[in-house]
C-alpha cells in the first residue's frame, strides 16, 4: 500500500550529536514537506521541496537542513542537536499541480525527537 514512512519514530540523544530523520514515500509524489509540531501546538512548515534537487525553507526558521536527491526520499538533518530542537517532526507529500488530489497532503507518523 502506498504510504509515507518516517524513521525513527522516537529518538532521544545528547546535545551536540548529529541526527538525520528519514522520510520516504512510495506514491511518486513530487512535493514533500517537513513540519515541526510542539506538543498541543499547530504545525509549522520548516522545509519543502517541489522535486529532485529542489529545496526551500518554510515559514518557521530552522537550523535543520534537507536534501532531495531522489523523488521518494527527503531526509532532514541536524548537524548539532540542542535541547531547543526537541519537538515532533512530521513529513508529508502531495501530488503535483493539476493532478487529482493535488492539494491534499499525506502525512507520515512523525519522528519525536528529544535532545537532552
Amino acid at each position, binding site marked *: 500500500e502506498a504510504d509515507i514512512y518516517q524513521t525513527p519514530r522516537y529518538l532521544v540523544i545528547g546535545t551536540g550529536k548529529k541526527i538525520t530523520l528519514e522520510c520516504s514515500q512510495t506514491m511518486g509524489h513530487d512535493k514533500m514537506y517537513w513540519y515541526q509540531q510542539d506538543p498541543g*501546538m499547530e504545525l509549522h512548515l520548516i522545509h*519543502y521541496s517541489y522535486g529532485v534537487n529542489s529545496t526551500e525553507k518554510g515559514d518557521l526558521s530552522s537550523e535543520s537542513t534537507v536534501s532531495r536527491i531522489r523523488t521518494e526520499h527527503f531526509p532532514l538533518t541536524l548537524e548539532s542537536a540542542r535541547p531547543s530542537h526537541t519537538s515532533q517532526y512530521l513529513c508529508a507529500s502531495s501530488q*503535483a499541480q493539476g493532478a487529482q488530489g*493535488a492539494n491534499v*497532503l499525506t502525512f507520515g507518523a512523525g519522528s519525536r525527537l528529544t535532545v537532552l
Partner: protein
Amino acid sequence: AQTVTQSQPEMSVQEAETVTLSCTYDTSENNYYLFWYKQPPSRQMILVIRQEAYKQQNATENRFSVNFQKAAKSFSLKISDSQLGDTAMYFCAFMKPRPNFGNEKLTFGTGTRLTIIP
C-alpha cells in the same frame, strides 16, 4: 499572511452525539482551499474533509460535514453520530493557491482536542 484560529482547545461529547468544531480564518484571497485534518493519539495525521472556496456547496464525507461561510470566513466541522474512534486532535488548515508552483504550504490552526466519551 493568512491566519487560522480555532477557539476551542478542548471538547468532549458523549458517543453518538453530534459535535461542531469551529474555525475562522483571515485572508484577502478569493480563491483558496480549506481542510480539516485529524491526528489520533500517536498516529498519522489524515485528511477528514476538504472545501474549495469557489464552491458554494458545503463538503460532506459520510458523518463529517462542514459549514463554510465565505463572507464570515468561517469553516466549522460537524461530526454526526460521534464514535470512539473520532477521539483525536482536529486541525483546521488553509491553503492559498500559487499558480506557478502548485498548491502547497498549509497554514494550520492550533487544533481542538476532541474526546468522545463512551
